[in-house]
């Protein structure tokens, strides 16, 4: 008898997928099934947390062309 599991399908490019897999590896509380290179099946209640974490991660790795005036980063 097959089972139906409720969740969210994420479709993304491989680069984004690898970031999500990395974020999940901390607590293993996001991904239910790793489907293929561009798809993940994740917990519905973790979507907001995932988006926040992803944004944070992108912010860390993304360098604007000009540094912001109020940036508190030390160079």
């Amino acid at each position: 008898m097959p089972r139906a599991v409720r969740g969210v399908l994420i479709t993304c490019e491989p680069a984004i997928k690898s970031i999500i897999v990395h974020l999940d590896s901390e607590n293993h509380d996001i991904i239910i099934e790793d489907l293929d290179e561009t798809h993940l099946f994740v917990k519905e209640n973790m979507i907001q947390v995932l988006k926040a974490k992803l944004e944070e991660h992108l912010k860390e790795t993304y360098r604007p062309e000009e540094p912001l005036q109020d940036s508190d980063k030390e160079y």
Partner: protein
Amino acid sequence: VVDQIRLWQLENERMSTQAGFLFKDFDSVEEYTALSSYAEEIGVLEWKSDKKGLFFVSKYEQIRDYLKSRKSAK
């Protein structure tokens, strides 16, 4: 703020999410094939892997009913 908007655009372009149901643990390849074909037919199939025997649908009610009718037909 501008930076944040840019980040969101980046994410939205690169990632989409959809709520639904993943069907798994099929008893046989035949059962998987029959159900995934039916899901495709009624237009709820969003992703599938014949190799893994898994598929994702946006709605599951019709498939549940189809599964029941298959059971009772046996």
